[in-house]
């Protein structure tokens, strides 16, 4: 890592607070409390057991629960799995219908899809354009067969906050269980299981400055929510979740919850102010759109769509800056698959704009200086990308963004030409020759402009809307053209691919470039012929 990146991905995971790490170390070192909490017959085990129980109280206290209502899991994904599948197996005799939302976290979506395969009926509620669900819509979806409503308190991509208290009143009235995925909420805002009247609630440690690999599920005792265990063997956690308890992680989660309890109110206020400052700065750009709700949201998350830039180029640009920004297009869990966010599409964002979206998530160590640097970086990059686009007409002047020397996802050649494309300012001169090409569906559009004098290209410039490779191909094309005569333009797709070390999935960029070369060569010869005729 050349330059330490600016971290704005707190919703994906948070660093462990130093106080948490300190507590954890006491349970890791050889002279520490390493016992198995289930080994109650000796002191090593009992010390570990006591530490686990203390942490259980700390977690319970943060969400207004009793310690005996907390079940340790390996994380919020497991909590969600246990809650939904556990209820499905325990209550199947009552009905086989559940209600959830289209914008839930993957771990809820995938569990519900699995249940659909098992013969369950799932109602997937669409959100309103602001990401919220109305209690009327929910009320209409509940029927006699319904056993569970599963909704997230705070959306992980947009930060949108649901009115769970009203929903909890409704589900309680209708005699339906309510599960709340609160992974993005706990530790960031007050969460009270009594106030929300929730029966089950998922918590994650690594979203609140605790360790990865540990989470909890709140399971209501009065009235009791029944669950069938998903991991069997040994009867840990009152039979609801077996497996040796990872003492150090549990203690870490307890400490993280204790700190959150103490720091939350002030911290949320500070982070909210920074988040608002960030939005204010970014919205100085024309045609940027905030995704989600302006008034009902968690403090640390801001999701923005940038019109007129390609999503891949935007994200590669942000992560390839000389001081890179570490952030996400949405959930880290789906980041590896390069699709646009299903959450944003459910809010009504069209594919292209959903793809050109960035989730900024701020946290405990985000500073105002960082926010200001982020604003400048994003503005500069978006302006540079828009300047290169053949379609963008509005004001987008500004300095060239400072890019890093390499990017692990791209070949050196592609990255070099991409940064060259970003640095170049479009010329104001009239071009003699303009040719254009695009890919099916216009996901990428490329325009080549050139001037010819004395039978040779004296200037050339590419304007591209598209991915990093297409911008690189444009820059390569412009460079290739200068100094050559129209007859000399003889390059195959394979040669372009080789020159740029293009990935096979990016072959269409080379094809577009080859097309443009052919077109401009023909047009140039016509121009030259015409000029010669005039001269003779």
């Amino acid at each position, binding site marked *: 890592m050349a330059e330490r*990146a600016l*971290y704005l*991905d707190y919703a*994906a*995971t948070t*660093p462990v607070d*130093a106080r*948490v*790490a300190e507590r954890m*170390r006491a349970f*890791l*070192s*050889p002279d*520490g409390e*390493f*016992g*198995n909490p*289930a*080994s*109650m017959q*000796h*002191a*090593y*085990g009992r010390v570990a057991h006591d530490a686990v129980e203390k942490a259980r109280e700390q977690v319970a206290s943060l969400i207004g629960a009793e310690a005996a209502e907390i079940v340790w899991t*390996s994380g*919020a*994904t497991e909590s969600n*799995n246990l809650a939904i599948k556990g209820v499905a197996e325990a209550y199947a005799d009552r009905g086989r219908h559940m209600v959830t939302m289209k914008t839930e976290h*993957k*771990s*809820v979506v*995938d*569990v519900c899809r699995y249940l659909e395969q098992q013969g369950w009926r799932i109602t997937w509620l669409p959100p309103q354009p602001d990401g919220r669900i109305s209690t009327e819509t929910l009320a209409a979806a509940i029927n006699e067969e319904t056993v569970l409503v599963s909704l997230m308190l705070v959306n992980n991509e947009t930060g949108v906050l649901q009115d769970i208290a009203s929903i909890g009143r409704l589900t309680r009235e209708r005699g339906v269980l309510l599960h709340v995925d609160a992974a993005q909420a706990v530790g960031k805002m007050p969460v009270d299981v009594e106030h929300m009247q929730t029966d089950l609630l998922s918590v994650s440690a690594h979203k609140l400055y605790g*360790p*990865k*690999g*540990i989470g909890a599920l709140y399971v209501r005792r009065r009235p009791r929510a029944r669950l069938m265990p*998903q*991991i*069997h*063997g*040994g*009867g*840990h956690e009152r039979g609801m979740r*077996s*497996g*040796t*308890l*990872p*003492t150090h*992680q549990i203690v870490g989660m307890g400490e993280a919850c204790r700190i959150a309890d103490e720091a939350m109110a002030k911290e949320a206020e500070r982070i909210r102010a920074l988040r608002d400052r960030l939005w204010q700065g970014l919205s100085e750009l024309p045609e940027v759109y905030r995704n989600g709700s302006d008034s009902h949201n968690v403090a640390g998350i801001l999701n923005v769509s940038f019109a007129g830039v390609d999503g891949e180029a935007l994200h590669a640009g942000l*992560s390839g800056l000389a001081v*890179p920004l*570490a952030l*996400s297009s949405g*959930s*880290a*869990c*789906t980041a*590896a698959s390069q699709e646009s966010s299903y959450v944003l599409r459910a809010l009504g964002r069209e594919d292209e704009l959903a793809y050109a979206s960035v989730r900024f998530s701020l946290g405990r160590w985000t500073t105002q200086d960082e926010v200001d640097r982020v604003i400048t970086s994003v503005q500069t990059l978006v302006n540079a990308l828009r300047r290169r686009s053949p379609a963008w007409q509005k004001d987008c002047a500004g300095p060239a963004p400072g890019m890093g020397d390499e990017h692990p996802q791209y070949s050196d050649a592609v990255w070099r030409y991409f940064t060259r494309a970003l640095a170049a300012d479009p010329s104001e001169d009239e071009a003699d020759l303009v040719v254009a090409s695009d890919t099916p569906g216009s996901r990428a559009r490329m325009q080549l402009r050139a001037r010819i004098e004395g039978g040779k290209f004296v200037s050339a410039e590419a304007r591209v809307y598209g991915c990093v490779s297409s911008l690189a191909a444009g820059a390569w094309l412009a460079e290739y053209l200068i100094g050559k005569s129209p007859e000399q333009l003889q390059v195959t797709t394979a040669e372009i691919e080789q020159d740029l070390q293009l990935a096979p999935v990016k072959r269409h960029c080379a094809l577009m470039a080859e097309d443009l070369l052919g077109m401009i060569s023909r047009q140039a010869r016509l121009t030259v012929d015409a000029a010669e005729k005039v001269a003779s």
Partner: protein
Amino acid sequence: MPVYFDHNATTWLDAAVLDAMQSSLAGRYGNPSSLHRFGRVARDAIDRAREQVAALVNAHPGQVVFTSGGTEANNTAVKGLAARSRPGRILLSAIEHPSVLELEEPLKAGGWQVDFVPVTREGIVDLAALQCMLDEGGVRLVSVMAVNNETGVLQPYEAIAGQVRAAGAIYHCDAVQAAGKLSFSYPESGAHILSLSSHKIYGPKGVGALILDKALDIEPLLHGGGHERGLRAGTENMPAIVGFGAAAELAQQQLESRTQHCAGLRDQLEAGLSALPDIRIFGQEQPRLPNTSQFSVPGYDGEALLMALDREGIAVSSGSACSSGKGEPSHVLLAMGIDEQVARGAIRVSLGKDNTGAEVEQFLSILARLTGAQTQQSSGDRFASVMGQ
């Protein structure tokens, strides 16, 4: 000085493992699924650990799926294979860990017939009985552990694999107590799928692994997000995974010295035990884990003996930590046909690489004193005279 003789329940972290985990615990952070640099640093660390864990059992890194521990690995293997198969018969050995045995109920609920393969008096799975059960037909899945966690007795997993494969069934082997404690190779074992755990080999708790052939069709236990080739959802527990990798590498490097050290202590212990009256050591003549000795002090209540030892600062176990505190005699010993009274007096000593001969001597002398007191207790007048002093 307190003495820890319960390494089959859990071990402490080796200092080198803790070192390896330090930077990922508090320093560099990132969600391994994130595409940015922080995420990639985490991913590289996980890939390295994957290689280290694979090497421990001579597997390919692509065959490693990280889980939250051995229990989750066992559950995923058995439930996950069953979920993708037409219900039929499943065979579990009678001495499996509770995380396998307790799958009986959910399997039955899923339409499976669950049968238990008996073991011999020496604690070894009865191969002839297994063959009979396989010959009856309909068996799709067999789960037999590599090494028993209580007695330490090695199971004939290669022979089992041969029989199971010949019958066209899938063999899951719980290798939690084997991998890292003795030489164990995934390809040579013949098993289709293995379960491993980190905290039995001086790695952190909260992480384990499945080793499996990519061709196996298995339903994930945890859905959502497609981590670990879609077989195990959830943000990877990166520091623990890094720790597991380091622990696996150390275990491989030190396998011989640890084996010699523990076997030496165990032999010293058992020589001392044989000097005590009527002590019975289980599976003593069988190939065993070098660190494990389970024995019974006849006429003595194991729980009471454990409590007495605990007061003397000695940590041992009656069997599996997972079922301790229940006051029931070991299911493993009962399956071996051991009399219930004898089984109730069972003590498991599981030694570690840092234990010493002096600790073994300390244990032996305390045990002699405690069981001596027991003899006095059983005799009324001598008991009274002791109390009178």
